[in-house]
């Protein structure tokens, strides 16, 4: 009993537990349908590329994982969430594809500008978006959700404007590469792995992670201790913008077009959910990047599972919403206190009977 309790107190308990739960549900579903019970885990090589549901989860979950990095930092430092990420992804798509195809073009099979310029321009714009959000939050003292609400609406609209309200196709193999395969490995997995590795190295070997946490725990105290709190919050938002851009890069290359209306749609909920599922408090302070990443892939696993069960993409939000509510209710202070009260009462009764 005590070992179980100490296990539930581990920080990574929640994300790993939910991941295992999703896998278990998959196994049960497979058995119920008469498929081989471990179908979820089977990885085969078809057409010279890796194939399997697990690979699918890793592949499709790349965007959420990349977004989760930035979102974790934002949540930790400013105790709020950046809801503009989905919209900024779509803005990246608009900027990048417009640069590559040339303004007003809808369907091209040749670059108008070099590939790197397109990607660079897109990432620059998303960094500026992050700068804008960060400025409003850090220097104007506006609630993060409200400040990012502006770009939530405007980002997608500007993207649509750049693409003239049309879907811009860039049919060049080198552009599709980022969303397709490198050798036998899906490229998005590699991109996500690189992003995660860079973030992990920076947070581990520099003091940035500690600064961010200290600002999140107490902004005023950190300022008095000598950190420039506002600058650190600003930096977190810029990183979040950059992550949104990278996620947009993968998403855009995947469909080799700027479908501005749909890229990154509702992605912000997935990213926030990943952070919450990772055992991070949405009230800011301490963060756990590994938890967020596992959380991100768990969400993708849930989505993939729902699709394989025949739930349409329009209906899937219902289940996700239920999961969010369950997670935040478990994390809520009054609920925790209630359980503490119950367990302490039980312990008291036990001791009384012993005596």
């Amino acid at each position, binding site marked *: 009993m005590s070992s179980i309790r100490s296990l539930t107190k581990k920080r990574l308990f929640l994300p790993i537990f939910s991941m295992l739960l999703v896998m278990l549900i998959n196994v049960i579903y497979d058995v119920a349908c008469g498929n081989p019970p471990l179908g979820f885990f089977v990885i085969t090589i078809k057409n010279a590329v890796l194939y399997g549901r697990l690979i699918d989860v890793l592949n499709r979950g790349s965007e959420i994982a990349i977004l989760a990095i930035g979102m974790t930092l934002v949540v930790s430092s400013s105790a709020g*969430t950046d*809801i503009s990420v989905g919209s900024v992804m779509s803005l990246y798509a608009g900027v990048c594809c417009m640069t590559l195809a040339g303004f007003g073009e809808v369907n091209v099979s040749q670059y108008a500008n070099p590939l790197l310029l397109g990607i660079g321009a897109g990432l620059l714009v998303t960094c500026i978006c992050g700068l804008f959000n960060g400025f*409003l939050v850090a220097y*104007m*003292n*506006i*609630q993060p*959700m*409200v*400040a990012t*609400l*502006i*770009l*939530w*609406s*405007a980002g*997608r*609209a*500007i993207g*649509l*404007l750049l693409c*003239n*309200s049309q879907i811009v196709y860039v049919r060049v193999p080198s552009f599709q590469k980022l969303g397709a395969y490198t050798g036998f490995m899906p490229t998005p997995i590699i991109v996500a792995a690189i992003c995660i590795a860079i973030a992990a190295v920076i947070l581990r070997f520099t003091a940035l992670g500690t600064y961010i946490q200290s600002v999140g725990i107490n902004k005023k105290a950190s300022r008095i201790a000598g950190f420039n709190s506002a600058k650190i919050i600003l930096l977190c938002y810029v990183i979040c913008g950059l992550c949104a851009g990278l996620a947009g890069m993968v998403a855009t290359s995947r469909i080799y077009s700027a479908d501005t209306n749909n890229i990154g749609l*509702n992605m912000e*909920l997935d990213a*926030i959910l990943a952070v*919450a599922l990772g055992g991070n408090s*949405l*009230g800011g302070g301490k963060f756990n990047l590994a938890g967020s990443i596992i959380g991100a892939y768990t969400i993708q696993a849930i989505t993939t599972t729902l699709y394989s069960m025949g739930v*349409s993409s*329009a*209906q*899937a*939000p*219902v*289940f*996700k*919403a*239920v999961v*969010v*509510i369950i997670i*935040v*209710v478990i994390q*809520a*202070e*009054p*609920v925790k206190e209630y359980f503490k009260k119950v367990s302490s009462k039980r312990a008291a009764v036990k001791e009384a009977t012993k005596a």
Partner: protein
Amino acid sequence: MNRKKINGNNLLLLITIALFVLMYAAGCIVYGSKGFANLQSFLNILINNAGLICVTCGMTCVMLTGGIDISVGSLIAMDCMFLAVGMETWKMGSQVLMFLVLVIGVVFGLVQGFCIAYLDIQPFIVTMAGMFFARGMTAMICTQQVSIVSDKFFTGLSSMKFSLPFGGYVNKKGILQMPYVRITVIVAIIVVVLIFLMLKYTRFGRSLYAVGGNQQSAALMGLNVKKTKLKAYVLSSFLTSIGGICFCLNTMAGTTTQATGLEMDAISSAVIGGTLLTGGVGNVVGSLFGVLINGTISTLVKTNGKLISSWSNIVTAILLCFFIVLQSVFAKVKEKK
């Protein structure tokens, strides 16, 4: 000190009204030849945004307590789909369905309000989950577009016209046409008046301001903070359901993508109308003007004809940004004093 504070808040409202008048006058001058200056085109803004006015009233009440409700757009989609499928597929009476929609609104608000007020979860997260839940439920009810054609009572309500006794104009065929409003506008105006009176003169209305101004002092004053918050969210969802019925009367259909981004319109209208996002300050009259400004922007974009519809989103976002920054500057000035 006290007087100055009130002045600052009134200033925001004044800026809003001045902005609306300016924008409308500019529209009349530039697009006067396309019929923008007619009284009917002004009434059309009201007709198109009747649902939004109801929603914004509820949103204002929630924002007064310092919270936010972003589930409204999806809730409207769910209401419309429920009404449409109820009438066309389940063949239920529209009166029963409208009553059920209001009940759904209250229950929805109760659940959200309970999570926010009694479990201390951030309003944004709860209502975001509510938003996705409602949007998904819309698809659960039906994934196709359903048009309402069979119910006599509902179609009757929808096509009802109330002509005004003045302001008529002679159209191209030489017939005198009176400007008219739909029943939804009357509902919206009643809602605005009722909420205005409630905020000004009832215990609940005043306690909304008190809770938003400072939760602790409100609690020390003996107000039940949690109950007030719960009631605010129930009121918001209830008014959203009324707005949903108005919306449905306008569109006469239910689709899964209906009213996407309506929450943004409602929030920006309330903010533009002078409601502080931190709570405690706001007024439904301002919110009404906020909606009118939003409506004017989209009408201007439509009247122009050449601009892409996303321009209205961009302009609204710029205005929203302007007002948010303005509020933040005001708050800083107040702090320094």
